[in-house]
Every structure is written in structure tokens, then in C-alpha cells.
């Protein structure tokens, strides 16, 4: 067995990990759609989907069968190539971001040393999914949703990057493994509370989750940018939203809550528990909050969150220089 070298084994192991994380992210995204509906039902004092299988557990399979066998319709007035491209961008850009997330000390796809910047780049590309999808649909509601989405995402991405720079300054690295290692003794939620608060808000806004789902507000826009999409193309937008939720939750855990660190339990469990907590928070926010007006959303982003992140970054830098003047 001369071909079985340690190098080949390492490559195969890395590929296996990447595959498991990829499939895990997609599957969890799909499962979350049902979990969200059940939890919304619970919190809003109604049943939710409980008919298919015991306690509604087979609802996911029913949904998948439905979505796969629906007619995959492209409107004749749509711009075909961009119409097909948009959901692919929506799905792929978010999935690719999972590359940088270290799940446990031994698990994770890649140790990019520009880790966080890679996430920001993918978030930047993700805007085009909504923008192009809305434009290519040739529908005015879709176009309005796309314009709203691009304005909102641009505004919130500005301070999303800034809110993370405090963490980067404290850890001294863009690499997420270094950031997790730097939180061995103290989670960054404590020195970077404002960074956490603004990143949470920006994360919700960038994934277009409620209460920042202006681009697809049902009452005004009849579903916004994906109003013309059906079947699996809609499915990609739909699952992509939940994959985005999963991504932002795991990023929050990695950046502010010590990643896999925690007493007694194995690292993978700690990571899962913390991520699950933030997924629940995302769903609870949707269950509990009304949708704000669009101009309020924009002015909140620019007038409150952006100055807050700038001041946070300034104070963080000053404190770091005070504590370690020779660094």
C-alpha cells in the first residue's frame, strides 16, 4: 500500500469533513423550516404543523416532496439567465461561508487567515441574489423588494464589518481559530458587548430575517423579491434564509461566546447548544416583534448602530493600547 500516504489520508479526511459540514448545514437549514413553524405555533398559542406523522415530525418530508414536484416555472417576461442564477448565488454564497467556521478543535473546513474577511466578502456577494432575482423577475413588487433589500443590506453591512473589528483587535487575528483560542479565559461578549449587540442586529438584517424582512414584506410587497419563484428555485431562497440563520448563529457563538469552550461537556455539544440557543432567539424575535417601517430601519442603522460601532472600536483600541502599551 504505497499510495496510502499520510498526506493522502489528511486530504481525504479534510474532504470528508467538508462534505459532512456542507450536508449538515443544508440539512439543518431544511429541518429548521419545520422547527420554526412548530416553535412559532407554540409561542403564538396555536398548534403549528402537527398533522404529518407523530407530532408533525414528517412535515419536512411532505414539504420536500411538494417543493420538488411543483412546476418549475420561469415567467416569459423574466430575464432567464439571471432568474436562474439568483437563487444559486443566494444558496452558494451562504454555504461557502461555513468554510471558515471552526466547530471543534479538530473539525472545520479551512483555516483561512483572512477568515472573517471571507465571510464579509460572501455576505457582500449574497446581496446580488436578492437584487438580481428581484430585477430578473420582471415584476414591480419583486423589483421594489430587491431595491429595498440592496439598500438595507448595504447599510447594515457597513457596520457589520465594523462591529467585528473590536473582536479582531482583541484577538489580533482574522482567523476564527485564533479568535476562539483568545476566548479561553474570557468570552468576548463581556469586553465587546456593543460589538455583539450590533453584530446580532446586522446579522438579522443581512439574512433578511424578521423584523428586518422589509424586502419580502407580505403586506406591502406580496413577498418581495421571490414572488415569481416557484419549486426548487424558491426552495433555494427559502432554505438559504435558514442556512443564513445557522451561519450567523454559529458566527456569533464563535466570535462572542467562546466557540467550543465550556466546562464538562465535549466541545461539539457546547458548540451545538450555543448555536441552538441563538437559532431559538432568531425564531423568538420573529414570533414576538412587529415589523418596523422601512425608513425607521434605515435611520436606525445609520444613526444609531453605525456611530455605536465606531465608538466601540475607538474605545476598544484605546483600552488595548492602555493595557498593553508596548504591543
Amino acid at each position, binding site marked *: 500500500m504505497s499510495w496510502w500516504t499520510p498526506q493522502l489520508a489528511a486530504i481525504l479526511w479534510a474532504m470528508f469533513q467538508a462534505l459532512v459540514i456542507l450536508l449538515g448545514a443544508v440539512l439543518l437549514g431544511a429541518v429548521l423550516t419545520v422547527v420554526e413553524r412548530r416553535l412559532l405555533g407554540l409561542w403564538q398559542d396555536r398548534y403549528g404543523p402537527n398533522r404529518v406523522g407523530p407530532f408533525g415530525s414528517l412535515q419536512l418530508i411532505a414539504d420536500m416532496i411538494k417543493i420538488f414536484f411543483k412546476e418549475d416555472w420561469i415567467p416569459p417576461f423574466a430575464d432567464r439567465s439571471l432568474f436562474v442564477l439568483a437563487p444559486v448565488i443566494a444558496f452558494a454564497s451562504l454555504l461557502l461561508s461555513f468554510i471558515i467556521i471552526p466547530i471543534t478543535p479538530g473539525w472545520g473546513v479551512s483555516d483561512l487567515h483572512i477568515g472573517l474577511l471571507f465571510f464579509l466578502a460572501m455576505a457582500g456577494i449574497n446581496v446580488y441574489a436578492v*437584487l438580481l432575482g428581484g430585477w430578473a423577475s420582471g415584476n414591480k413588487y419583486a423589483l421594489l423588494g430587491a431595491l429595498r433589500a440592496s439598500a438595507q443590506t448595504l447599510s447594515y453591512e457597513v457596520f457589520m464589518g465594523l462591529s467585528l473589528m473590536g473582536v479582531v483587535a482583541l484577538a489580533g487575528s482574522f482567523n476564527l481559530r485564533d479568535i476562539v483560542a483568545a476566548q479561553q479565559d474570557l468570552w468576548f461578549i463581556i469586553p465587546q458587548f456593543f460589538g455583539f449587540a450590533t453584530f446580532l442586529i446586522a446579522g438579522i438584517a443581512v439574512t433578511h430575517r424578521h423584523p428586518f424582512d422589509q424586502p419580502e414584506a407580505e403586506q406591502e410587497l406580496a413577498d418581495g423579491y421571490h414572488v415569481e419563484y416557484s419549486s426548487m428555485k424558491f426552495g433555494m431562497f427559502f432554505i438559504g434564509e435558514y442556512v443564513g440563520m445557522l451561519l450567523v448563529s454559529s458566527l456569533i457563538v464563535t466570535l462572542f461566546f467562546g466557540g467550543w469552550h465550556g466546562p464538562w461537556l465535549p466541545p461539539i455539544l457546547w458548540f451545538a447548544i450555543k448555536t441552538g440557543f441563538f437559532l431559538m432567539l432568531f425564531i423568538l424575535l420573529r414570533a414576538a416583534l412587529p415589523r418596523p417601517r422601512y425608513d425607521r430601519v434605515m435611520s436606525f442603522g445609520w444613526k444609531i448602530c453605525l456611530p455605536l460601532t465606531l465608538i466601540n472600536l475607538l474605545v476598544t483600541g484605546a483600552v488595548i493600547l492602555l493595557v498593553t502599551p508596548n504591543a
Partner: protein
Amino acid sequence: MELAFYLSGLVAVLATLGVITGTSPVHSVVYLIVSLIAVALVFFALGAPFAGALEIIVYAGAIMVLFVFVVMMLNLRSDTRTDQPWLHPRQWLGPATLALVLLVAIMVLLARGSPGTLIDGELLTARSVALTLFGPWLMVVELSAILLLAALVTASHVGRRNNPLHKRKRGGNP
């Protein structure tokens, strides 16, 4: 790395050709985004991932969104008629001659350059970029920051709601 360099360079050239040959404005902008991402990959292949990431975040992720935004707002459809006058030799002869001079210059430079330059160099991390920017080039960084601030103030001044210029046009409407 060399293969990645040449492949992404090829994609960048083809995508840029798509930009100027396409008739639909939105398609052209999408080609331009692809071209920028390909250039970012060229940076990655050259061992400057920081520059590559910034290329995607700033150019592909922010500036091009504004381009797409404006093209959508103007609702331009594919229209070849407006291009016809531009194809007249009188229009493109001057710029083409100037571009030809540049092409000759770069050809001469490439022919004279050392052929042994390798694509694999040392890795330029965020740390080294930051130390260069905020060390010897600090003055330039500060000056460009002031320039951007001035642009911001100007934009906010021009766009403010009770701008006297707007007031005159709308007949006293605030």
C-alpha cells in the same frame, strides 16, 4: 497556484469582454462583477489574500451594488440603436491610438522584464499590509481619509432636505 493565476486571469479577460460586448446593461454589470471576483482570485493566487478579500468586499460587494442599483432604477433595457454612432471611426480612433501606445509600452516592458519572476511569493497577511499602511504610508492614509470625509460632507450637503438649490426648483416646497 500558477494554474489558478492563469485560469482566473483568463476568466477576468473573458468577463471584461462580456462587459463591453453585451447589449443588456444589467448583464454587463454582472459580467463586471465576475471580472472583479476573478481579479480577486488573481490576488489570492499571487499570495495577497488580504487584497483579494478587500477587492471582493469593496468593489464586488459594495460599489457594484450601487451600479446594479442605478441600472435598475433607470430601467435600461437592451438597446443597440444608441451604440451605432459610437461605432463610427471618428469616435474611437483617438482613444484606440492612445490605448495602442500603452499596449506597445506594456509589450516592451514584458519583453524586457526578467523572465524568472515566480508567481509564488511570500504571503502578504493583513498584519503586514496594516504595518505598511500605518507605518511609512501613514500620511497618505490620513490624507485619503480627509478626502473621503470631505466627499461625505459634500454629499450630505448637496442631498440635504432644505437645500436652497432644490427649493428654487420646486417653488418653495421644503
